[in-house]
C-alpha cells in the first residue's frame, strides 16, 4: 500500500440536519493515518459546516465544528470552498472559521488552509482526483 492517491472528500450537506457531515469528518480523521494526498471541498449547504460561532445547545447535539480547526494537525492543508455556494447563501469567507496549518518546511509558518475557488475551478480540481468521497 505504498501508492499515494489524490483523495478528495466532498462535503455538500448542512452540519446538523443529517449525520453525513460528522461521519465524513470521522473518515477524514481516520484516513489521515494512511498518508494519502488529501483535500476537502465544501459546496452547496456543506459551506455551513465551516461557519464560525456554531452553538448547538438548543438542539441537544454535539457541536463538532471545533474539530475542523484541528485538521491542520492531521496534515489536511487543502480545503476548497466554492465561492458560488457561499454567495447563494448570503455568506462570505469572513463567516467561516479561519483554518490554518503550520508549514514544517518554512519554520512552522502559519498558512491559510481555505482556498476560495469558483465552481469551474473546483470542477478542475475534482477532475484531478483519484478518489472522491461524497458526503
Amino acid at each position, binding site marked *: *500500500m505504498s501508492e499515494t492517491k489524490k483523495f478528495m472528500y466532498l462535503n455538500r450537506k448542512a452540519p446538523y440536519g443529517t449525520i*453525513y457531515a460528522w*461521519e465524513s469528518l*470521522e*473518515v477524514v480523521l*481516520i*484516513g489521515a*493515518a494512511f498518508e494519502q494526498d488529501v483535500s476537502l471541498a465544501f459546496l452547496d449547504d456543506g459551506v455551513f459546516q465551516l461557519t464560525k460561532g456554531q452553538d448547538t445547545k438548543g438542539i441537544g447535539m454535539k457541536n463538532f465544528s471545533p474539530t475542523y480547526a484541528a485538521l491542520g494537525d492531521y496534515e489536511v492543508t487543502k480545503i476548497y470552498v466554492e465561492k458560488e455556494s457561499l454567495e447563494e447563501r448570503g455568506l462570505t469567507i469572513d463567516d467561516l472559521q479561519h483554518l490554518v496549518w503550520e508549514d514544517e518546511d518554512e519554520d512552522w509558518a502559519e498558512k491559510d488552509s481555505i482556498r476560495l475557488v469558483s465552481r469551474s475551478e473546483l470542477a478542475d480540481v475534482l477532475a484531478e482526483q483519484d*478518489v472522491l468521497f*461524497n458526503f
Partner: protein
Amino acid sequence: MKLTIQVNEGPYQHQSSDSAYNFTKAALEKGHEIFRVFFYHDGVNNGTRLTTPPQDDRNIVERWSALAKEHDLDMVVCVAAAQRRGIVDEGEAERNGKDATNIADGFRISGLGQLVEGAINSDRLVVFGD
C-alpha cells in the same frame, strides 16, 4: 476492474441499497473483482439479520448475505456507525455490555480504515447514497 462499493443508506427507506446490490451483482457477473463492500451511515442497517420484510417483498439483508456467500465477498460494517445504530456482533456485544447480537451472515464489523484501504487498493470507489 477492481472495485470497492460504499453503501451509505439503509434498506427499504432508500433505493441506494438496492442499486448497490444490483450494481455489485452485475459487476461480478461481468467478471469484475469486488475488493470490498463497505456499509456506512445508515447503510449499516443492511447488516441486521432481524430484518423481517413482508413475504411478497425482496429480503435485502438475505440477498446481500447470499451474494457474499456465493462470491466470497468481504462485507464490512463500519464500527462507529454500527455502534450508534445498534448493529452488534459478538465482539461488540461483549465490549459494550450488550445482551444480544444481530449481525447477519456474511457481514463483519470493522473500522473506517477498511474503507480508506478499499479506496487505495481499488481502481474505483463506487458510492451509493444521497
